[in-house]
C-alpha cells in the first residue's frame, strides 16, 4: 500500500485470524480480538509501521485480509471506524446485538498464537 492509497488518518490495522476467522487488531505487539486495544496511528510514519506489521503477519500466515481503517476518536479516545462497514465489522451484526464482539464473544483460540 502506498501512502497515496492510505485512508485518511488516524488509522488502525485490522485483519481476520487465519485459523479462527475472528476480526483482530494490531496492538503494536500482538493481534487482539478487542477493538479498544488497537494501536492508533495518527501520522504517516505510524501508518507505515502498521503496514509493515500487516505485511509481516500475512507473510507468517497468521492473518488474512489485513488493511488499514480510518477511524474517529470517541470521547474516551477510543477508535471508532468512520465507515459503516468497518463499524459493523468491529462490533458484530447490527441485527443481532447478542452476537459478536458487541456481546463479548470471540472465536479466537488463545493457543493459536
Amino acid at each position, binding site marked *: 500500500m502506498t501512502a497515496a492509497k492510505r485512508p485518511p488518518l488516524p488509522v488502525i490495522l485490522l485483519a*481476520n485470524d*487465519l*485459523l*479462527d*476467522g*475472528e*476480526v483482530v487488531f494490531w496492538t503494536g505487539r500482538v493481534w487482539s480480538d478487542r477493538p479498544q486495544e488497537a494501536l492508533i496511528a495518527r501520522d504517516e510514519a505510524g501508518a507505515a509501521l502498521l503496514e509493515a506489521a500487516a505485511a509481516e503477519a*500475512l507473510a507468517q*500466515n497468521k492473518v*488474512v*485480509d489485513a488493511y488499514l481503517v480510518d477511524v474517529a476518536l470517541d470521547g474516551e479516545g477510543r477508535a471508532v471506524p468512520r*465507515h*459503516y*462497514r468497518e463499524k*459493523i*465489522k468491529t462490533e*458484530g*451484526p*447490527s*441485527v*443481532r446485538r447478542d*452476537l*459478536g*464482539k458487541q456481546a463479548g*464473544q470471540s*472465536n479466537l*483460540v488463545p493457543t*493459536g498464537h
Partner: protein
Amino acid sequence: MYRYDEFDARFVRERVAQFRDQVARRLDGSLTEDEFKPLRLKNGVYLQLHAYMLRIAIPYGTLSARQLRQLALIGEKYDRGYGHFTTRTNMQFNWPRLRDVPEILDLLADVEMHCIQTSGNCIRNVTADHFAGVAADEVEDPRPTAELIRQWSSLHPEFDYLPRKFKIAVTGSPQDRAVTKAHDIGLRILRNAKGEIGYEVMVGGGLGRTPMIAKTIRAFLPKAELLAYLEAVLRVYNLEGRRDNKYKARVKILVHEIGAEKFTQLVEDEYARLDGPSIVADPQEVARIAAYFAPPAYEKLPLRSTGFDAAKTQNRAFATWASVNLFPHKLTGYAAATISLKNIGEAPGDVTSAQMRVLADLAEKYSFDELRITHAQNVVLPHVKQDDLFAVWQALVAADLASANAGLITDIIACPGLDYCSLATARSIPIAQALAQRFADQERQIEIGELNIKISGCINACAHHHVGHIGILGLEKSGKESYQITLGGDATLNAAIGERLGPGLDAEDVPDTIERIVEVYLQHRKAGEPFIDAVRRLGLEPFKAVVQETLHAPA
C-alpha cells in the same frame, strides 16, 4: 431420497481428508492465500465480515430428519445455535472456525452431506422445484436428474476452474418453481410429440450486475443424452468464456456477446465431436438413482378430511395458516405445508437449532421423513395427511414457526447483507424486518395477496431482487446506505427483470415508499388481479410518482 452407496460414501470421506490436508498446507505456507482461497471456496468456506462462513450443500433442497438434526448439532457445537437457509437452498453457518471445518465435514459425511462446490468458479449445487414429486402438473420428478448432475459435476476434472460460477436448475413442471431462466443452465423436463421424455435446455440466464433471461439452445434433448450435452456446453464455456473481467465472465455474457445462435452452433459442433455414449450414464444407472425417488408409501385417503375441516371451523388462526401455507398435493387427502421462516421482525431464513429439531421431528412423524428447503428460504413438509395438519400446526405454533405468510408480502427474501457478508454494500436484514413490521397485520397481508419482495445487499443479487415483484438493492451512496427499488420482476415461467423506479432511497424511507406502492396497487387493481399483473397493466408511471413523492417530501 437418494442414499449414498459405498462409492459416494468413500468419495465424500476422501474429500474431507483432502480438505484437512489443504488447511494444513495453508498453515505451513505450502499454499498461499491466493491458492488456498479457491480450494476453501470450493468446499463452502468463505471469509465473511466477522468470521468464516460455511455453506453446506442441500442438493435440490431435500433433507431428511437425521440430516437436519445433524445440522442442529453442528449449529450448537461449532456455531452460535442457529443457521441460515439461502436462496440456493443451502444452509450457512456464520461463525465456524477454519480449524473446526474438517471436523464439521466429518459430521456431515456421517449423514451423507457435504460442502462440495457450494462456492467457487465451478458447477454449484444443483437446484430443483421444491414441490418435486408433489405437484400435480409434473411431467417427471426433477430430482433424479438433479442427483445425476450433482454426481457428474462433483470434482469434475475439466470444469473445476471455470471462468466463473455456474448454476444449474431443473424443473419437472410447466409451472417453473425453480427459476430456471435465471440460471446458467435451466433444464425443463418435457415430453415430445412421440411422448418421450427429454429436456428443454436454456443457457445464459443470471442476475447480478447484468440480469439476463436464459435462451433456449435445444428445444428437446433426449433424456439419455444429458451428460454428454452438458459436457459440450461446459467445454464451450470453459474455452470461450471471458476471463479478463470478473463481471463479464458468466456464460450469460458470452451468450449475449456472440449471440444465442452462434453459441448454440459452438455447442452443437462440440457435441457432434464428442463420443456421447462413452460419457452418458447408462440406463441402469439412471434407473438406480430414480428408484430412490419413488413415491413414499402413501395411504389411500378420501378427498376431504373431516378432521381437517372441523379444525378449520374451530380455529381461525389454523384456518388462516391452512389457507395461506398449504400447497395442493397430487394425492387426495395429502397436502404440502410451507413452514415460513419469516416471522415478523426476524432475519429471513434464519432457524435455530431447537427449531431444526422440531422440524426434523415433524418430518419424521408426519411427512415420510422428508423436508424441502425452498429458494424463498422456507421449509416444506411435502407429504402431510390433511388429518395431521392441525397437529403439525400446533407443534409449529409452539416452536414459533407458524407464520401464515407464505407467498405474501412479509414472506420477504433477503440475503445476509452487510450484517454478515463481506461483499455487501448495504444491510438487507434490517430493511426486511422494517417492512415485515409495517405489513404485519394478517388481514391486510391477505388482502394485498401474492406479492414478493426480494432484498439484496449488493449487486451480486443473491436475493434475486431483479425478479422480485418488488426488488430492493442496497448500495452505498456518499458514505451511506442507499436502496434502489425495482418493480415488475417475475421469477416464474414469464420471467421478467424488474425496472428501476428512480434514484436510491435512505433506509428510513423504504417502508413508506413500499407502502405507497402497495396503496397505488390496491386503488387500481381489478377484482382478483394480483400485484404483478396490475403492474404489467398499469406500467411503471403511477409507481414512479410515489418514489418522487418520497424524495421530495419535507424532511
